[in-house]
């Protein structure tokens, strides 16, 4: 059995965001909202869903749930989080160390404005794809497919 995590660990920590540094430019100037890969969409969706409790382990669990039945490795989550942070789509900060993690802190994540916009664009595109697919194959197909993949 895994130790229970306190959901407020990330929320109550002393946040030191990348955006706390005095940059001479804004998030909007850093990068355009690139189109996201499927895995990046999953990670962003997981962070959005987890809200204040988004860190490595919880993000991995959430992405695993979203990507089922595919297996997702924790390493792939770290790589994607780094890439998303480089693109300015997410921001991270360290939480206070906790005993259940061997006295180590968590790196918590939250969506930046650019990340929210990119995710919105992806969701709208996915909705258009869904509309066309269900129009051609019928809504029953959607329900059936949903049951098959769990």
């Amino acid at each position, binding site marked *: 059995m895994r130790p229970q995590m306190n959901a407020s660990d990330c929320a109550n920590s002393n946040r030191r965001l990348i955006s706390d*540094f005095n940059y001479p430019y804004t998030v909007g*100037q*850093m990068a355009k909202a690139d189109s996201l890969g499927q895995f990046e969409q999953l990670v962003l969706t997981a962070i959005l869903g987890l809200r204040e409790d988004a860190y490595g382990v919880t993000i991995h669990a959430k992405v695993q749930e979203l990507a089922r039945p595919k297996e997702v490795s924790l390493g792939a989550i770290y790589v994607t989080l780094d890439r998303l*942070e*480089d693109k300015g789509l997410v921001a991270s900060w360290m939480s206070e160390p906790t005993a259940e993690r*061997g006295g180590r802190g968590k790196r918590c994540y939250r969506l930046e404005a650019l990340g929210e916009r990119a995710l919105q664009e992806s969701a709208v595109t996915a909705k258009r794809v869904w509309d066309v697919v269900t129009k051609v194959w019928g809504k029953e197909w959607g329900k059936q497919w949903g049951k098959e993949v769990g």
Partner: protein
Amino acid sequence: MPAGPSRTAEKIVAMLVPPACREEVLGDLHERFLSRSQYVRDALHVVPLVILSRIRRTADPQVWLMQAFALYGSFVVTAWLLDGALLEQQWGLLRLAIPAAMAWLGLILEDAYARPARQLLTILSRGPATGAVLALLSQATFLATNPDWALPQAVAVYGCVASLFLASSVRMLFPPAADQLQGVNAPAAWLKLVGGSVDAPRGSLVWGVVLVAATLLGYLMWR
């Protein structure tokens, strides 16, 4: 509740994971611990990807290219000065590229494993020194296993010395991305947009020019 991973296992993983992301990775692995075999499996999946991701984050392709040319140039010029025939031999240029590639690997790994807020002397010395040690180790391995591929001893040693100076000069002029901001996970891509180093060593340009000039002068006098 299962006990945590053994201290030895954690120490090994801690040694392999770059310091910039060590705390969160070790904490996450600790939190996911269910059994020893599961911990080892998790670590094997996570560690290589974390290292590659860190290398990508600290990478600056332009500086990488400059460093590669500087390192290769060191060995080629040394061979030209000491043993010109080596350059005309079949595979001669490839033999010279091997220690240069090892020295380059040393620089890349040193940047990936660098702790934030390094001192100027550390930036200048540790990466090139790690590279030189790896280059010499590769030559020692060739001497022991396949001497045909090893460089003449003088070329290998003086090439390493020259690479130390030239690589240090390049690093002085173009500090590694990992050193440009003291935030542990500050993305390299953002830093480049700042238009220069946030925390560049003072007078680095002057010292870089002096080092390059001293290296060239040393070569000419020695010749």
